[in-house]
């Protein structure tokens, strides 16, 4: 069963990933883009929401699963729903 789950997880990745770079933030498997302006971006993930605070925030890549945010990120808030 473990192998089956691993294969399913590999083929159909449901887990979200957040990767922080120097002046950017990469989010994989996000659910919804909730709010967006140049100081705050709110995104919902599987079971929680995160708010990214900063300056000059801009989305440079936006697909069904991926989001890449550029800007000076000062704070990331995680909200359990």
């Amino acid at each position: 069963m473990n192998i089956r789950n691993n294969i399913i997880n590999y083929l159909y990745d449901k887990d979200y990933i957040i990767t922080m770079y120097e002046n950017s933030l990469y989010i994989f498997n996000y659910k919804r883009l909730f709010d967006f302006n140049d100081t705050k971006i709110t995104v919902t993930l599987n079971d929680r929401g995160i708010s990214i605070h900063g300056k000059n925030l801009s989305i440079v890549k936006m697909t069904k699963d991926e989001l890449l945010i550029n800007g000076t990120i000062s704070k990331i808030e995680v909200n359990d729903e």
Partner: protein
Amino acid sequence: MNRVKIKLSIINPIKELYKLQVNVYNIEYHKDFTVITIDEDDLEKIEKLNFEILSFRGLKFILKKLKNNIHFLISIALSILIMYLLSNVCFSVNVIHSKKEIRTLIEDELYDHGIKPFSFKKRFKEIGIIKETIKNEYPNDIEWLEIIDDGMKYTVRVEERIITKEKKSSDFCNVISTKDATILGITSSHGQTLLTPGSIVKKGDTLISGEIKFNEEAKARTCAEGVVYGNTWYKISVSIPLNYTKKEYTNKKKNNLAFELGTKYNRIFKVHFDEYDVDKVKIFGIGNFALYKESIKEYKSIKSKYSKEEALEEAKKRARENLLTNIGDKATILDEKVLQTDDYNSIISVEIFYSVKEIISKVVEAELPTLE
């Protein structure tokens, strides 16, 4: 999947694009517009937005680029093809040997094995096999064969196998004199020596006889062998003009290129020297066409005049050269004497006497005496 780069007049189009569920792969924010990269299929979704297509990405982009640069790409491909052909095609086969029969034999054999002008070059291993095959086919004719890949041509060096035939020994022969002479020395290995050093002989006299006599009776017959040195005499006449022209090189040199097409020989650059010598080296040749590199040296013709002594020395030098050319290098000049000198109309005529030591013997088959 083809992608397309578009320009939107909206400053921040994220909300609209998110609502329309458009995948955006790159966003560039500008003061009055935004440039985004999206899938070509998503263009329908943003029909309502005011946009301008800037360029295509992916396969369509590559195809468009290829189409725009088709002439350049074809010329590149052709250049590569020509380079490949030039470096892999043999334009001539040059067999180096003094004998025409050997050259023809090798050329024919190489032709049969596919080494011929305007054909593809062979691999190193194949050339080795061809060499061995030809050598094995003609074991009595070819001693050594080398096929050198010399750029656009093959240079073939061949050494003929010389099988020394056993000397056919005749049963009865004499050694005779080839010239009138005074005998200086005799070395005999077979036969009976008839003369001693100091004897005077005429052309055709027997020097070493193949008939061995004892008490005036022939006891045995053999093929006489030996070398006889004789003192011979020559008179050489030489005429030399006292006025002559000599070349004096000016140290001015020039390199030039020339080409030969059939029987016509043309220089690429004009030579401005009045008098010059040319050394040319062939650098390239295909069929009747050949390209040469010329090294041109300028000289000035200077008129000069021999003094009597100089003219005499020059005449002696030329007479000696003529004599040795005629009688061979093995001969030695024993004595030299100027017999007569005439100076008339700026020409000096000299008659010189030479006393020479040379081989005067020759083996000839002798006829057996007929029985009475």
